[in-house]
């Protein structure tokens, strides 16, 4: 059962915000989390270096590069232009596929929600294609599109598209009908209804879909980069950076790539959250 202190915090709304810093530092939760992370990294370090201490290596963990080696490899890579070029390439691919999915997916989802006939005709084929994992499209896409870049963009687009459409459709359909009636009783036209009720009412779901879609997009870009393995390290993106490190046998650098992608994914989902709170002031937590 939840801690009582925790419950009481929920019951009383906060009146005055203490400075963020002092709130974080005075919080047991923060220190526990930090402690756990430190212990985690230490265990990893010791587990990976087991052989140096005891003469034999642990199963699985012993094959991992120790975190200190990872840190060293990272400092070596940081000043290199190729590393940052990988970031740029991956971000470019993610964003292009993602934005295309938003531009096509949101109107498509809204059309499905608003127009019955449209939904009856287009939703079933959509549902038939949806369960196919996006990565299964990679080979077909490589055949169809003239360049590697276009096929990666297409698969990325697919990955985000299905999620966004499903979320938009669900969000728009779950809008409380009272809002629509209230607006109608105040004389709103169909146009007003769409722009003032349906679109804002769907926004939360759009952003949920976008956040999930962004995660899938990163997975897809990564896989596509690994499978198609485009060109030199510079134009290959972070997925190729990892694959290249694997081929070159540089274990620490693989982990550097993994962490980099983790950071990149985190940055993108934070961006979506920030944009979301900007466009939905009524959803801000008080």
């Amino acid at each position: 059962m939840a801690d009582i202190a925790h419950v009481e915090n929920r019951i009383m709304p906060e009146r005055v915000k203490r400075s963020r810093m002092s709130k974080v530092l005075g919080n047991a939760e923060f220190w526990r989390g930090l402690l756990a992370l430190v212990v985690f990294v230490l265990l990893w370090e010791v587990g990976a270096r087991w052989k140096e201490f005891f003469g034999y290596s642990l199963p699985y963990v012993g094959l991992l590069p120790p975190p200190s080696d990872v840190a060293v490899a990272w400092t070596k890579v940081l000043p290199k232009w190729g590393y940052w070029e990988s970031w740029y390439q991956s971000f470019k691919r993610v964003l292009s596929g993602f934005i295309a999915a938003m531009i096509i997916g949101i109107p498509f989802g809204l059309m499905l929600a608003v127009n019955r006939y449209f939904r009856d005709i287009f939703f079933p084929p959509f549902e038939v294609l949806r369960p196919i994992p996006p990565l299964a499209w990679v080979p077909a896409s490589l055949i169809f599109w003239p360049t590697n870049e276009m096929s990666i963009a297409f698969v990325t687009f697919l990955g985000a598209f299905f999620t966004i459409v499903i979320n938009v459709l669900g969000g728009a359909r779950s809008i409380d009908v009272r809002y629509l009636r209230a607006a109608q009783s105040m004389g709103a036209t169909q146009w007003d209804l769409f722009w003032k009720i349906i679109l804002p009412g769907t926004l939360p779901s759009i952003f949920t879909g976008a956040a999930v879609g962004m995660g899938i997009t990163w997975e897809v870009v990564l896989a596509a980069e690994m499978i198609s393995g485009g060109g030199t390290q510079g134009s290959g993106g972070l997925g190729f950076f990892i694959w290249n490190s694997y081929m070159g046998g540089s274990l620490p650098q693989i982990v550097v790539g993994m962490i980099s992608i983790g950071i990149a994914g985190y940055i993108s989902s934070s961006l979506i959250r920030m944009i979301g709170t900007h466009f939905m002031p009524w959803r801000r937590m008080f």
Partner: protein
Amino acid sequence: MNIAVPRMPGPGREGQPGANATGGPTRGQISIRNVTKIYDPEGVNVMAVDNCSMEIAAGEVCMIVGPSGCGKTTLLNAIAGFHSITSGEIYLDGELLCGPGKPKAEQGADRIVVFQHGALFPWMTLAENVAYGPMVQGKLRKREAIEKAFHMLAEAGLGDFGGKYPGEVSSGMARRTEIVRALINNPKVLLLDEPYRAMDALTKSIMHESLLEVYDRTKVTIFFITHDLDEAIFLGDRVHVVTTRPCKLKKTVDVTLSRPRNYQALSSEEFRLLVEEINGAVHEEAIKAFQSGEREMA
């Protein structure tokens, strides 16, 4: 005309260990002495209850009336053992529930809460819900408990619904089941936290009569929180009006309406006079609460 209200179950007066020779109840006497509760969620002290004292006699129906979110529930939570108190003490039948050195009372089946929005476990049927208390306390085996639950539900006119899930029955039935779930444990005190808040007036009146009927049979002490003055006078032996946050005693009125009561009491002259007497105090607090503009806490 008297509408026949299904009898609510409960230990009969004869069988009740708390009933003495003269028939007056002796269990469930609560003393609340100088209780103060201060929350400190964000480093800012918020006083929910300020030096509140009241005596509740055994077998009394004690009604607490005040605006929404004024801290009444905090008081109830302290008795039930959900929250700690900052200072003061609370006794049940002379035993310390919480006080100095023991800020939080232990939760126990002698004080059972009926919640505002209902807390029947949605994953158990009504009968399983009722049987849960005796079963989990190890008093009865599962089969016996279920049997007894069905029996008590039938007494409350819910016999056919024992196998239903709470999500399938009306809120009135659910709330009535919740009271049965409390009574099966033979509690000293029933703590009711605005249990009929979300109900329409007609359902509410049925719930009132059925609660009165339960009380007449069991004479269990009832601590009832509400913001509905009519409800308070109709059900209670004594009505305490409390101030908006921090919660403090503002006015106490003894209800002289005779028992057993039925809905006709609502239109009596006596009832009207009582409403008149208390209304001013309640309204004043309502205005204060409204003007503070704080969001009500569920």
